[in-house]
Each structure stands twice: as C-alpha cells, then as structure tokens.
C-alpha cells in the first residue's frame, strides 16, 4: 500500500516535470492553448465570482456578529480584505477550479484514451502529451492567479454590500478601511502561490485522465481521483507555501 502510494507520487512527479520541461519546447500549440485559456478562465469566471461574492457576504455577517460585541465594527473591511487576499481567495479559487477543471480534465482525457482519440492524435505524429497535457498545465497555471483576483474583488464587493445594508457604510469609506494597513506583500505572494495550485491541479487531473486505460470505469475513476487528490494536494501545498511566504516576508507572520 505504502509502496504503491510512493510509486504513484513518483509517477505524477515525473509526469509534471515532463509537462514543465515540454512547455518550453516547440511546437507551442498556440491555438489549443488559447482554447484552454478560454475553457479554464472564462468557463470558471462566473463560478468563482459568484462563490466569492457569497463568501464575502457571509464572512461579513459572521465577523460583524462577533466584532459588534467589542465595538470594533470599523475593522470589518480590513478583516475582510486580509482574509480574502491571504487565504480565502487563493484557497477557495483553487478548490473550485480543482472541482470544475480537475474533473473535466480527468474525465475528458480518460474518455479520449478509451475512445482511441489519443492514439489517433499520435497516428498523425502529433505529440498528444504536448497537445492535451502541456496546454492544460500552462493555461491552468496562468489562469489561477487571475481567477483569484476576481474572487478577491467579488469577496470585497460582497462584504461591502453586506456591511452597507447593516450600517450604511459608504463605498469610499469601506475601500479606505479595507486597504488601510494592507501591504503589497499581503496581496502579491498569496495570489502568485495559486500559480502553483494551478500547476498541481492540471498535472494531477491530466495524469489520471491521460494514463488511464480502463474504459468507462477509467473515466469515472479519473474524474474522482482528479478532484479528490488535487483538492487534498493543494491544501497540503498551501501549508508549505504559507510557511515559505512567512519566511520570505516576515512582516506577514505577525
């Protein structure tokens, strides 16, 4: 069991390293890359923005009920922005994309394997790995930080509307309070860490889809494993990345 787990980790790592290496080698499959940018970015946009907005509203409702006891409701906007920039935005975006894109990649590639579409690509002397895996890895790695920014904005907007309904706080004052004391280091490193989440989600989901060979059962397993394993791995990776950010930007670790 343990041996099998280590073997799987080794195979996924080698698969991901190959994707990383091949990303710098021609042909660059620009047309298919754009298709993946659209599929991942535009396809996930509404989901991310809606989730961010709803989370922003709920977060503010919870924070207000606690802070009102201490007369510290003026701190709600900055709590909201820091929570979203540092953790909620990056992690929730990662989990949402792991669910949507991870399952899609796993199921689609496993289906392409089962229906010999991958063999057909290879029969035309086209590298199916470059066409199907590398394009998805690049697109997911680049789109995750962008989607995270949209999640952050939607969260802050949701928080403002919730706060405005409760206390009639103006948008200008809300923004002023939200960004008061927020440094660039609170925003840039946590947003950039989602590029690692994107790389992990695409690598893991493509690995399970591309390497399966079990027909329709393989499609089911690939979709399930893609979501479960990539969600778990990005949470574990988050722990390491947060530690790294604290090491590089000690002011954040207060």
């Amino acid at each position, binding site marked *: 069991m343990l041996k099998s787990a280590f073997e799987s980790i080794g195979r996924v790592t080698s698969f991901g390293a190959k994707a990383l290496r091949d990303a710098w080698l021609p042909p660059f499959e620009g047309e298919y890359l754009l298709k993946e940018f659209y599929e991942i970015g535009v396809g996930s946009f509404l989901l991310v923005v809606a989730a961010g907005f709803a989370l922003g509203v709920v977060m503010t409702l919870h924070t207000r009920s606690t802070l009102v006891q201490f007369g510290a409701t003026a701190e709600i906007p900055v709590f909201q922005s820091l929570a979203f920039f540092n953790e909620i935005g990056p992690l929730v975006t990662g989990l949402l994309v792991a669910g949507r894109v991870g399952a899609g990649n796993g199921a689609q590639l496993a289906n392409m394997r089962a229906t010999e*579409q991958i063999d*057909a690509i290879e*029969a*035309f002397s*086209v590298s199916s790995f470059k066409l199907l895996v590398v394009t998805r890895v690049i697109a997911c790695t680049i789109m995750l930080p962008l989607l995270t920014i949209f999640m952050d904005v939607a969260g802050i907007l949701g928080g403002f509307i919730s706060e405005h309904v409760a206390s009639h706080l103006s948008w200008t004052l809300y923004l002023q309070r939200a960004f008061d004391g927020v440094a660039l280091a609170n925003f840039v490193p946590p947003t950039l860490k989602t590029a690692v989440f994107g790389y992990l989600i695409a690598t893991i989901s493509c690995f399970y889809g591309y390497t399966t060979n079990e027909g329709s059962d393989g499609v089911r397993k690939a979709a399930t494993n893609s979501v479960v394993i990539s969600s778990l791995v990005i949470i574990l990776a988050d722990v390491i990345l947060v530690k790294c950010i604290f090491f590089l930007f000690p002011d954040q670790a207060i």
Partner: protein
Amino acid sequence: MSDNGSRGGQDNAAIAFERVDKGFNGRKVLDKVSFSVARGEALCILGRSGTGKSVTLKLMIGLLKADGGRVLVEGEDMATLDEDRLAKIRRKMGFLFQSAALFDSFSLNQNLALPLHRLDRTKSRDEIKHAVAETLRQVGLEKDGEKMPVELSGGMQKRAGLARALVLKPEILLVDEPSSGLDRITAGEIDDLLMKVKTEWHTTMVIVTHDIHGARKIGDKFAVLDEGRLLAFGTPEELDDKQDNRLRQFISER
C-alpha cells in the same frame, strides 16, 4: 504455423512482419507472426476477439513497438525510426479506428484539417479547406462539415473517420473493424467506400474484421490469427481449399 505468411515478394512489400512478438502484462498477444502485404493489395486479418488483430495494426503505424522481431513499412523498421522519419512514414498512412476516434471537441472540418496541418506543410489554408471539402464529398458528408461528431450517427461517424484517414491520400490504409456496431446496409456502404478507394487509388489496405462477407468482397488475401499465432495466410480461394475445421470457423460465410 505462425511463420507461414507470404515471404515471396517481400522486396515489393508495403508492409512486412518478421517473427513479431508482442505481449501485455506477461500475456503474449502475438507469437512470432510473419506475413507481408504487397503494394496495392488488400489484406483482411480475421480471428476471434483478443487475438491481437488491432495490436497488429497499431504495430504497423508505430503506436506500439514489437517486443521481438521486426515490423517493416516501406522497408523501414518501425522500431528504429526517429520522430522525423516516423512522421514521414505516417504521412503515407491512414488509420480508421474501430470507434472512428473523431476528436469530439472538433467539428468534422477541423477533424480532417488536423492531419493536413500537421503532416502536409506544403498546403495553404485554402488548399486544406478544399481538400477537406473534397474528401467529405467522397464519403457523402459534404453537408456535414460544421457538425460535431456527437451529432452524427454511428455510420456517419465511421464514414467521417474514413474521410479523416483518407484526407492525406495515403498509400497504405489501416482499417480496424469497419463494420462493428453497424447494421448490414450501413456496413455494406462502408465496404463499398473501401472498394472504391482500393480500385481508384490502388491503396494498400490492411483491414481487421469479423465480417467475413465484407472481407470476401474487399480482401485479396486473408490472414487468420488464433491465440496470437498465424493460423493461415493466403488468398480466400487457397484458404477455402484447406481442410481445417478450425480455419473454416473463421472464413465460412455462415
């Protein structure tokens, strides 16, 4: 018995198998199989499911590598070719997969254009468009170019798969189970298309089939595989003359 394929005229052979072995997970699928296919000849490979018929086709186009022996296409050993030479050989080959293997996220036009874009760098966009339309017309799908594979019936998918295999005007056409999953009439239409290709283009064909009726219509020679070994090889008339009950099970029309 497995070594009784046609050795005569191997110099003129489009494809030659020389004592080819292939196995998966310790199970031998092909055991020292030898035969050759002359240029312009149509060879039908018959046999029960799981006897290595489709594997034989995948060895011919280099999607699989033999464990032992040699697979020669146009005199080139498929196991020793680098990517460029493999692409040159594949440029001369078309492959109709059992499931048609159309790329389900591409329209028919895009499915047919892909091999032209990748394997025929001499054609302009307009020439590619013209070649795609002309090939779709030949299989009776001239009005369906913008359709997605999911919008087509099983027979239309097979015809579209055949069109994709033919779009490069291949010298060698590999066909995996052209009639599987089709009714008798539709299967007959596919057989007629293959006959047309054979007579008009003098294309070398290797057809894996269970349909002895279609095989007798198209095949110049039969190769019968049984438990990984070549049970018989020769013209249909030669095989009809053999007094072998096991062989009769495969080549009898009843």
